[in-house]
Structure formats: C-alpha cells, structure tokens
C-alpha cells in the first residue's frame, strides 16, 4: 500500500497537477477564442527554458525564476496573437489551429537555437525526501502540488469574482451577446492570453522540475493536455483542472503491478493512456465531465 502511495499515487498527483495547469490554459483559450492552440506546449517549454536561464544566470532558486518564465511567455503569446491569430480571428477554426502549429514550430526553433537539443535539468540541491508515516515525498513535489492548487484558486477567484473574469466567461458563452453588452472582446482576448501564458509558464517550470528540460518537453505533454481539457469539457477551466488530475493519476497508476508483480500496463505504453482517455471520452461522453462546448 505504501509502495502504491509513494511510487504511483504521489507521482500521479504531481503529473496531474502539471497537466491540470496546462489543460486549464488550453481550455480557457478554447473557451474565449474557440480554437485549439497547438503552440501551448512550446510556450510551456519556452517558460521552462527562460526559468532555467534566469535561475542559472542570476543564481536564484527555480521557484523565484517563475516570474521570469511568465515574463517571457506573456509577450510571446501576445505577439503571436497580434501577428497571426488576430488576423485569422474570423476564419475557420482549422485555419487558426494550423497557424498555431506554425507558431509552435517557431517557438521550438528558437529554443533549439538558444538552448540546444540536449536535455538539461534545473540546478537543484539534493534534499532527502520528507517522510510522514512511511509516506515519502520529495519537497519539490509538495511545492508543485501546492503551487498548482494556488494557481487554481487564484484562477477561480478571477473567473468568478472579478468583472474581467465574468466577461471572459460571458465571451465563452456567447461572443456576440458579450459584444452587445459592451465587452471589448479584443481586450478580453489579451487578458485570456496573459492568464493562459502564466499558467503554462508555471506548468513548464513544474514539468522541468519533475523531469528534465528538452525542447520537445511541452509538445510531449500537449496531447495529454488536450485529452485532459476534453475529458473535463473543453472550454470549461474547472473541468480541465479535474481532467488533468484524473489523467495524471490514471497514467501513473496504470503501471501499478496489480497482477502478481506484473504492471497493469507496461511503462512504455504509458503515453498511450492519454489517447485511450481521449478516445473513450469522445465515444462515451463527448461533451466531457463538465458539459464542454463540443
């Protein structure tokens, strides 16, 4: 039992927290702008690499470098929107999706150019894990789970309690009706990018802390993020957070040696879990857990 908690449940929660952050941003963008943002993963990698540069360059801790990561992803998202997405706002969603694929490749090329293809890790001191009653947990994992929870709470307050958050939800319900009530839709779109960029920067740093940094790190979790967003109901940020958590847990627990020491699923097939969840969701409950927009 302790082995399950230590080696499957806790890593599942950590991965779930990272997916949740990434999927929430994706879902927010989908809700307000109605397009699947394929550059989300590469934006995540950009955040992680800028955090790496800040923490090694300035000698600060990785946690303290998160604002630098956000300071890079926010303008990157806003520039991509102004240069590409804004011009295509009235075209088909597929056109926007393809353009975001282009942005993804540009961002990744920049990362290769400045940081190279070799995987690197954040500088981190070796600390013994915290132990409570046999449960061993790395302190960075505690911080990742707490940090993701804090982000979710802040986002919840923004969406439910502020005028801007209400405008975002209104736009995701019905953009024309939102315009009629006086919502300046372009300003709401910029705000959405900023929030999504912060979430994805945090997700990138957390992912880098949990594993390592490589230029395709974000693209590798993009499918899982989409699966989580769709599982929760695309366009529903709370659903995406829950979907991410579920997906992270399912991915890690799927390799648990339930049957006489043999894992339920060979670890090499772990990344197929997201596909299975995605296909099962689309077949059984395409609207997702929280009644999404498709």
């Amino acid at each position, binding site marked *: 039992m302790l082995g399950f908690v230590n080696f499957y449940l806790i890593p599942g929660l950590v991965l779930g927290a990272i997916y949740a952050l990434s999927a929430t941003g994706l879902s927010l963008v989908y809700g307000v702008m109605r397009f699947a943002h394929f550059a989300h993963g590469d934006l995540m990698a950009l955040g992680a690499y800028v955090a790496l540069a800040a923490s090694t360059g300035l000698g600060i801790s990785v946690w303290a470098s998160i604002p630098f990561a956000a300071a890079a992803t926010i303008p990157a998202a806003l520039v991509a929107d102004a240069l590409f997405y804004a011009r295509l706002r009235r075209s088909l969603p597929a056109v926007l999706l393809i353009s975001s694929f282009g942005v993804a490749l540009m961002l990744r090329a920049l990362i290769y150019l400045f940081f190279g293809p070799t995987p690197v890790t954040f500088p981190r001191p070796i600390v013994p894990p915290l132990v409570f009653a046999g449960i061993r947990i790395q302190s960075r994992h505690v911080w990742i789970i707490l940090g993701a929870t804090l982000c979710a709470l802040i986002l919840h307050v923004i969406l439910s309690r502020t005028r801007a958050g*209400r405008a975002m*939800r*209104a736009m995701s319900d019905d953009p024309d009706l*939102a*315009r009629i009530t*006086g919502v300046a839709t372009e300003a709401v779109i910029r705000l959405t990018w900023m929030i999504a960029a912060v979430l994805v920067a945090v997700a990138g740093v957390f992912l880098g802390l949990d594993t390592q940094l490589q230029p395709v790190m974000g693209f590798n979790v993009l499918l899982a993020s989409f699966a989580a967003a769709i599982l929760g109901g695309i366009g529903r940020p709370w659903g995406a957070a829950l979907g991410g958590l579920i997906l992270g847990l399912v991915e890690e627990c799927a390799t648990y040696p339930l049957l006489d020491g043999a894992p339920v699923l060979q670890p090499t097939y772990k990344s197929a879990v997201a596909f299975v969840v995605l296909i099962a969701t689309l077949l059984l409950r395409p609207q997702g857990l929280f009644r999404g927009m498709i």
Partner: protein
Amino acid sequence: MALLEVRGVVGGYGETDILNGVDLDADAGEIVVIVGANGAGKSTLMKAVAGLVRLRAGSVRLAGEEIANAPAESMVLRGLAYVPQERNVFPSLTVEENLAMGAYARPEKFRAGKERALALFPDLAAKLGQPAGKLSGGQRQMVAIARALMLEPRLIMLDEPTAGLSPKFCSVIFSRVQEIARAGIGVLMVEQNARPALAIADRGVVLAMGRNRATAPGPALLADPDIGRLFLGG
C-alpha cells in the same frame, strides 16, 4: 427627429444582401413592431442596427447621431439595447451575473438596475443564484429583457420575445413591453406572433424581401385585408 431613424439600409452576410433599402422610424416611448415572412430581413435589420451585421449603404441615426457600422460593443453606451432571438442570455452565468453583464459598461449602475429589473420581473428574485441556462424559456426571456434594461437604454430592440412561450408568458411579456414604453423607452420589436403584437403597436412595419412593404399604426395594419392575407396568415 425620431429617436431612431433608419434610412435606406443595404446589407447582409458576406456577398448576399438581405436588406435592400429599408427605412424605419421609432420614437421615444413608442412601440414599433416589424412583421414579415421568414427571410424578409427582420432579424437582419435588428442585427444591422446593433452593429452585428455590416451595412453597405444607408444610415442609422440614434438621437441624431450616426451609428451605422459602429462597433457592437459601443452601442450599449449610446443607449441602444438589443435582445437577440435565441441565445439571449449567458447560460453558464447565474441570473445575477447576467444582470451584472447588462451593467458591464457601467458597473456603478448595477445596484439600481437590479432593483428596477426585480420590480419589473419579481419572479426573478428567487432565481438570482441559478444559472440562466437552467431557466424556462419565459424566465430566460425575462432575464434577457432585464439585462438589456440595466443601463436605462433609450431604445430597446426585442427579436421575437414571445417565440416558443406559453400564452400566459406571452401576455406577461407584452404587458411588460407596454410598461417599458410608458417609461419613455423606445421599443423596436420583431414578432411572429403578429396579431397581439400589432394590437399594442404604435407603428407597424411590414417587411418583404428586405424592403418596406407597408408602414402604419399597428391596428390599421391589422385592419388592412391585403396585409392580413399576405403576412398575418389570413
């Protein structure tokens, strides 16, 4: 000078023009009802006035100010409120949040607006915390009208406010519309339910193929046998 003056508007979606030169006047405190067959351009006219459909020609003046092709998000501050036919509330927002969206452009007017909304539609008081998407069609229409009245518009446009409603709700909506007009607000309304709507109309406008077919006081249109046969189902 009328509150709303529409002159020779031409426009539609993409390449096709739905409106081929429509004229229309609406005064403060007046109920103007637009009737016509499906595809006559009634809803398109409202969307065009609201800034959601581009006009290729013509002029739209609200209180003397040209508003043709002004951005839709600027209309609410000019005193023009619009309730679309379907999708007239934000379904995932609560009733209270829908009202707050009505006062989005002037948040400081929310409290007074909410009081007026609840005085006009007391039934909504018990529903404030519910998502608007969970309400019945009649209650949704009340939320939509209340939302549009939040900032005390000069003109309110209602696109088929009684579509799909029970007769009881229809008469509630029509009596509220009369109350709104008595408060000095201009009401421009599209109605399929043409007979009861024209009965309370100060002015009725018959549209056909994106052009004016007839304009007269509502009861006079009702009495006209040609109009009755062509547009009101006999």
